[in-house]
């Protein structure tokens, strides 16, 4: 398996790009969809194969080549991106059928949609495996271009607004990050490491001790500030709720479940390579500060009765905060929690966004208003929403319960008992909002008149709920084995 890796790491993103070209050739929407699936399946398979290889290596040192770098974290992200991506492509027709006017004529717009989606996906798949900081930056920037188009796909005024904000803010943020990268490059150049490979993860890691502290600190700060914009950490998260609520549901799923964590992964790697020269106190402090702020900022927004997708967006903010906190704590327990949290959050959030498709079909003004008593109209949609909400609010037996427990325990172990306590209380406060959405939105009674769901249209969401739900339970079971496993310990050591 391992010897296939160098090929796979090239093939997987390449396949996605091929898919992009193919769908552009499609004549009819139907063709486009078939072509999309046809290429998506092997792509996902390849990505999962890579992920399996990476995860199977457990505690062993990471695989790396001239251009790629594959460790457990990359494996995790690959798996998440692959699964969410293929699900998104699978449900896309359900969205396109109902989508209104768009950039151009319907037929073209659909293949454009798929093209942009594949470009986005390809970039996402590349982020965790690329072995170079600068290259990672380039790819992230590329995701911005692709996803901005997708966010504004519906062409509605609000969608344009959301897309514009997303574009401007993330680009600005990323230029700040690039500034940081260049500063690093300068320091490397002064150490005599020239050229691109001076910015490879491992060469940075190797040189880390020699890097001058001041400029490295500046670089770290700028990088974090920049990436935070893309991760959606408070206080620079503001594009996130708009983009997530206006984008097509499949895209929102990718944004929330795949994009944010993979950028977070990059930030994590920056942390672990710069730790030797900047000092762990600083790096931990910055991460914990971002995490805690995000959780606290999310709470008041969750308390408002929000439209479904916007609610999920703010819960993404909260969960990015939790993950950042876990990485900041950095103890093996916390890292185990982070790993579990990323996976669990991805599945639950994706399911939630997919549930938005039938929801909007039943109740079109759910785009603007909080849902009411969905169970009355479509039990299966309600079930999907319920599963997603219960998981996101960290109740057993969901994996997020376990991961939050692990992260908080890790926090106490790291000596940040106070931070953990605050985070815990903030999470409990945020839970109130999700709970309200669950009780009023899902099981309540509805005042508005709705279309009743046709049983045929229910099938996909039922299937998704079953699959992702069982996946979540499996995660919980797996999560019990995580603590103390070599896989986690190597991650915690930040060996790159």
């Amino acid at each position, binding site marked *: 398996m391992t010897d296939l890796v160098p090929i796979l790491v090239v093939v997987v993103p390449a396949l996605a790009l091929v898919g992009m070209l193919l769908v552009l050739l499609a004549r009819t929407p139907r063709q486009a969809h078939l072509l999309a699936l046809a290429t998506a399946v092997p792509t996902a398979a390849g990505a999962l194969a890579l992920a399996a290889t990476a995860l199977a290596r457990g505690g062993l040192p990471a695989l790396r080549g001239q251009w790629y770098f594959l460790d457990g974290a990359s494996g995790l992200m690959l798996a998440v991106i692959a699964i969410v991506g293929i699900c998104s492509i699978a449900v896309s027709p359900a969205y396109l059928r109902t989508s209104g006017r768009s950039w151009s004529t319907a037929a073209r717009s659909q293949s454009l949609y798929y093209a942009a989606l594949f470009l986005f996906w390809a970039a996402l798949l590349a982020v965790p495996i690329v072995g170079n900081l600068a290259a990672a930056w380039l790819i992230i920037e590329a995701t911005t271009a692709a996803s901005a188009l997708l966010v504004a796909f519906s062409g509605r005024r609000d969608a344009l607004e959301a897309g514009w904000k997303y574009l401007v803010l993330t680009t600005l943020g990323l230029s700040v990050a690039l500034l940081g990268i260049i500063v690093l490059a300068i320091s490397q150049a002064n150490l005599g490491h020239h050229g691109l490979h001076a910015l490879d993860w491992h060469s940075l890691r190797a040189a880390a001790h020699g890097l001058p502290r001041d400029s490295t600190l500046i670089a770290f700060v700028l990088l974090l500030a920049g990436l935070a914009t893309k991760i959606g950490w408070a206080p620079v998260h*503001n594009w996130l709720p708009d983009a997530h609520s206006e984008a097509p549901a499949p895209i929102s799923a990718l944004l929330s479940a795949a994009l944010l964590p993979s950028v977070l992964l990059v930030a994590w790697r920056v942390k672990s390579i710069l730790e030797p020269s900047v000092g762990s106190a600083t790096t931990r402090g910055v991460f914990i500060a971002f995490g805690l702020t995000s959780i606290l900022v999310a709470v008041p927004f969750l308390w408002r009765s929000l439209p479904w997708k916007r609610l999920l967006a703010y819960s993404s903010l909260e969960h990015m905060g939790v993950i950042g906190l876990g990485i900041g704590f950095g103890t093996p327990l916390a890292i185990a929690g982070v790993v579990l949290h990323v996976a669990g959050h991805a599945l639950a959030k994706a399911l939630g966004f997919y549930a938005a498709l039938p929801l909007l079909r039943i109740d079109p003004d759910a785009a603007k208003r909080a849902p009411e008593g969905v169970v009355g109209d479509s039990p299966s949609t309600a079930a999907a929403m319920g599963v997603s909400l219960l998981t996101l609010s960290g109740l057993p*037996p969901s994996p997020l319960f376990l991961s939050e427990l692990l992260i908080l325990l890790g926090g106490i172990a790291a000596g940040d008992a106070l931070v953990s306590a605050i985070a815990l209380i903030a999470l409990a406060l945020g839970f109130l909002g999700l709970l309200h959405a669950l009780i009023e939105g899902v099981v309540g009674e509805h005042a508005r008149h709705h279309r009743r769901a046709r049983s045929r249209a229910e099938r996909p969401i039922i299937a998704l709920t079953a699959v992702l739900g069982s996946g979540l339970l499996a995660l919980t079971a797996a999560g019990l084995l995580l603590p103390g496993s070599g896989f986690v310990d190597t991650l915690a050591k930040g060996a790159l």
Partner: protein
Amino acid sequence: MTLLGAAGLAVLTGGDALGAAFRSTIGPALGLDPLSGFFLAVLALTAVPTLVFARDYLPTSPGARAVGALTAAFLLALVGVLAARDVTSFLAFWELMTLLPAAAILVARRDQAVRSAVYAYLAITHLGGAGVWIALLALAHHGALGDPSALAAAGTGAQTVVALAALIGFGTKAGFIPLHAWLPRAHPVAPAHLSALMSGMMIKVALYGLIRVEFQWIGATPRWLGLALLAIGLLSSLGGVLWALVQHELKRLLAYHSIENVGIIALGLGASLLFADAGQRTWAAIAFAAALLHVANHAIFKALLFLGAGTLERAVGGLDLDHLGGLLRRMPWAGGAFLVGSMAIAGLPPLNGFASEWLVLQSLLHVALHRPLGVALAGAVALAGLAMTAALALLCFTKVVGLVLLGPPRRAECAQAVDPPMGMRAGMVALAAMCIALGLVPGLVVPTLTGLAPGVHGTVLARHAGLVLPGTGSFPSLALGLALAVLTTALIGVRGKRRAARSPTWVCGQPVAGALGWTSAGFTKPLRLVLEALLRPHRAIEVERDGGMVQSITYTGHVPSLLDAALYEPAVRTGLRAAAVARRLQSGNVRTYAAYLLGLVIGLLVLAHTGALG
């Protein structure tokens, strides 16, 4: 369920631990030790009759199948909390225990009132639950689950934090005043068997957690904790019974009584801590046993009463106290059981309520016998308070018995009420029998319970039928019960059969009319007048006149819950207002957002420049 109960009983009597011991690891582990065994046994004692009851009760209610399944899951969660031996599974089952009844309630009914009640329940308990999380995570971190020395090593600071967090966390779930606000909301809306289990067992499991942490895991317990428990207990018992007294709806009344009884248990526990602090092992064990005995008793008679309430609701529809009556004659089985339960909860000899209250009273009295002065006075005050509580409970349940079971039927449905089907009857009668049995021979149980107290090996008491304690003129419950029975029957015999013709009751010669009937508000009027300053009752009288002639007079009165108005509503209001202010962050203006970014970058640069980032 029965099997589990048996297992619990076995472990309880066997006195040795079963399964895994406590550990501070993540991996799940289950096991039992005598304390969990005791609670498990109580759980079984209440759950089995309740389930028997539910078999005939459920099928006629909406979503019966789902509710049944959820009930079973709920019971498993309760067992899980009792059997959990590691932090993960404990917290997991803890959350499930909170969540499942809410789900069951929502399946059964979904109207606005129920939803808001369930929301309040989940919200408050979950917020309080944060305390449980903090306490347990801290314990787990110090490896102090099941190892008292570990936390003691961690220093008094950690001890205090854990103790407080646990007190708040478990206290919320147990319904201590002022953390009780969810309880009178949630219990009334649940189906009868669920209310029985929630009120009977769920809050007891919370107490189980409290005992675990405060008595076993935090090492040497500080004196302030004992005093705090006394204060909380006093507040809860008096407050609970007072507000129960002024309720007009039976289930709400019962819910408030749960608060009262939890308070009594807290009094026992506090006394035990104070004894332990003073180094009096025997009395510490006795007070502990008193608390545990009351746990069992309350679980039994509260379950009985809630089942009874459910039955009555079925029979006559609606539980407004002023519209029941005369049911003892019409439903002798259910009514009789309900009567027994009421007498037991009112703490009347020779029923089980009196036995445990007598023990708690004795413990408090003996607290008051000992120096230092502060503790002694606290004991004396608590003693007086408990006496008042008992008297108030007596007043309250005299009212309940009178309005529900006795006198003329106050509504047409009551006149046609009949006994429920076999299963429901059986469940209630079984519980009533337990009330009597435990009341007659508490002495057989108490020595075992004293053995459960921390630092006690074996038992400190000899086994009798009655309660024979040092420093008391013993309470031979069995003899007393028999004596009362024999004497009463003898006197009845002496009285003979001579009776005059049946006559109506004396109302100054007027015809007996329903309008002359005494109401709940009327019966508690003297007390309301005396405690007007505290209870702040609202009352409104509307007199309709027509040409000087009074056509109709309508009286409406209710007593607001003081704490809701004083504590919860302002807190919620300020919270929401603050949130609304905070939401201005998301102004919708892209330029503002860019400004955030600029500020963030410059701010971080400043920090780096000033060296604040190390």
